[in-house]
């Protein structure tokens, strides 16, 4: 299932190219940023905080489905082996992410401490141990009602241990921390979980959320029919777009704009990309090269707007409206055009202020709008015509 989507993502979009470009550009600027860091920058502390947060986020993937709540419930007592495998799977999957993060953090860490590569492996071993401890505790939490204080405790202890190891405290301090962690696991988590019941619905919810994360990502590139969607009212923003003209032309314009505002994460995605793009364009301050930031953010945003077209509208209503296909296509292209051009204006402003040049601003806005226009009027139009 996932492989199929990866395949589509790899072939059908410029994403892979974009990722390579980001790694190259990102690496270059990361290095530059490290060189400008003051000597007293708390690199170890920063690294420990980031790593501890990632270690403490230890959801357990059980691959349960709704129906399992009915059919597997009676077999709960016999599922111990299965759950052990779930924990092991979750541990290894999350360890991969942890390794990648550790590799990214390593230059900062080694620059701050001036230590040798031996510490890289020692550090990773410590991270794996903390991850394993977190997975184990996180599983116990599946039995416990109020997990907030426990999760807080987990995060704090993870941070302490990682920080002690990375800042090379004495073995006694590290050992003491480890003993506390074991005691907490046994006497707090295990004891509390021992006489409680497994909270199936929470496990299911967690699992669905994790499955959705990937599907939502894949949905940027292709239609994922199984995606469950969420809605927010966003009353203030919606009230800016009331039904103004009672005409057939505005039916789909309304549906698309309300979908964009209220559904899922379209608006959130748009805002995030715009803000991140604007910050990058302003602070990186790479002169005329900012045009690449503007263009690539507009392109990425365009890609993310496409799924609105495939958003599952109720067939009994939208599927049967007596309206020509044209009346659905045009409003969508129009909405995309407006959003992308609006975004290029914001990004160009930020980049223009960064370079303090009006000419640069004009170049940025022209390039951004050109890409926005091309993307919506040509690319999107072709994509949705092919889909129809």
């Amino acid at each position, binding site marked *: 299932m996932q492989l199929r989507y990866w395949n589509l993502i790899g072939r059908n979009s410029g994403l892979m190219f974009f990722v390579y470009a980001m790694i190259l550009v990102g690496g270059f600027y990361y290095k530059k940023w490290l060189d400008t860091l003051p000597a007293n920058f708390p690199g170890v502390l920063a690294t420990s905080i980031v790593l501890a947060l990632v270690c403490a986020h230890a959801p357990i993937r059980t691959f349960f489905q709704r129906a399992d709540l009915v059919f597997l419930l009676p077999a709960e007592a016999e599922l111990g082996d299965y759950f052990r495998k779930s924990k092991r799977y979750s541990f290894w999957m999350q360890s991969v992410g942890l390794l990648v993060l550790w590799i990214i953090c390593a230059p900062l860490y080694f620059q701050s401490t001036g230590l040798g590569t031996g510490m890289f492996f020692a550090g990773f071993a410590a991270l794996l141990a903390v991850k394993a401890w977190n997975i184990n505790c996180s599983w116990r939490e599946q039995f416990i009602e109020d997990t907030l204080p426990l999760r807080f405790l987990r995060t704090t202890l993870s941070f302490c241990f990682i920080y002690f190891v990375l800042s090379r405290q004495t073995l006694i301090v590290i050992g003491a921390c480890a003993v506390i962690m074991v005691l907490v696991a046994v006497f707090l988590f295990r004891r509390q979980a021992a006489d409680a019941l497994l909270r199936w619905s929470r496990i299911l919810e967690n699992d669905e959320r994790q499955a959705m994360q990937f599907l939502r990502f894949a949905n940027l590139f292709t239609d994922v029919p199984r995606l469950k969607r969420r809605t927010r009212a966003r009353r203030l923003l919606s009230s800016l777009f009331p039904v103004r003209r*009672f005409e057939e032309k505005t*039916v789909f314009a*309304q549906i698309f704009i309300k979908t964009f505002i209220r*559904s899922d994460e379209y608006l959130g995605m748009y805002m995030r990309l715009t803000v991140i793009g604007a910050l990058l364009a302003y602070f990186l301050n790479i002169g005329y090269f900012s045009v690449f930031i503007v263009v690539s953010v507009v392109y990425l945003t365009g890609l993310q707007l496409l799924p609105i077209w495939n958003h599952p509208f109720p*067939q009994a209503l939208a599927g049967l409206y007596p309206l020509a296909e044209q009346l659905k296509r045009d409003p969508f292209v129009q909405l995309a055009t407006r959003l992308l051009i609006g975004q290029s204006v914001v990004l160009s402003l930020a980049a223009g202020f960064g370079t303090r040049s009006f000419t640069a601003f004009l170049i940025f806005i022209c390039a951004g709008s050109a890409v926005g226009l091309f993307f919506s009027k040509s690319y999107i139009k072709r994509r949705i015509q092919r889909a129809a």
Partner: protein
Amino acid sequence: MNPVLSVKQLSGGYSRQRPVLHDVSFDMNAGELVGLVGLNGAGKSTTIKHILGLLEPYSGEIRISGRTIREDKIGYRKSMAYVPEMPELYEQLTLEEHLQLTAMAYHLDQKTYKERSEQLLKLFNMEKKKHWFPTHFSKGMRQKVMIMCAFLVRPELYIVDEPFVGLDPIGIQSLLDLMTDMKKSGSSILMSTHILTTAEQYCDRFIILHEGRIAVQGTLEKIRRQFGNSKASLHEIYLAVARGETQWME
């Protein structure tokens, strides 16, 4: 005059290798309420999907007021409204927006929309929920939204799939009253249902589907005569069909 709906020798379904419907033919005239009855899997929903134009027939044709969907897609669609079995709503639109968009899509003017929507909201006791999102609705309320959207349009033909499940008693009565009113004003209604006692009271004619074929159709009197028991209820006849006691049909 053309019948409002005419289904001729329709065969169809989801895969050509295993069609669900075989040679289904029936007509509906203006002002008729026809009950479509059959077991689960008898082909009711498939028939409805074909009429809506959501499925392509393998053979045979369907005409609404004399035209097929190929001849005039928009006109065909505009002449009917559909209440599905499982209410499907836009999660991201409020109740009022559902009504507005339906009205706009079917070319209602603002004044008509206002009149009809107010009347419907009152009838189904949903006036206070105009700005709610479907996530906060129960199955019955969602069903009411679908019903209101359909009856807002006042088309020639209503297609109503199992509308009573989940509705409260007042909702059921309001729907029945609405259907009676629409019939009087000349609309036709094709209603699929399992609630046979209600169907018996309100429907003018019945089509009993069994394993993808029309087992028997006509007014209750005609079916009873054929069945050979003038006091038999629809329930008894239906059970006989479902159990395969079909010798009386020929």
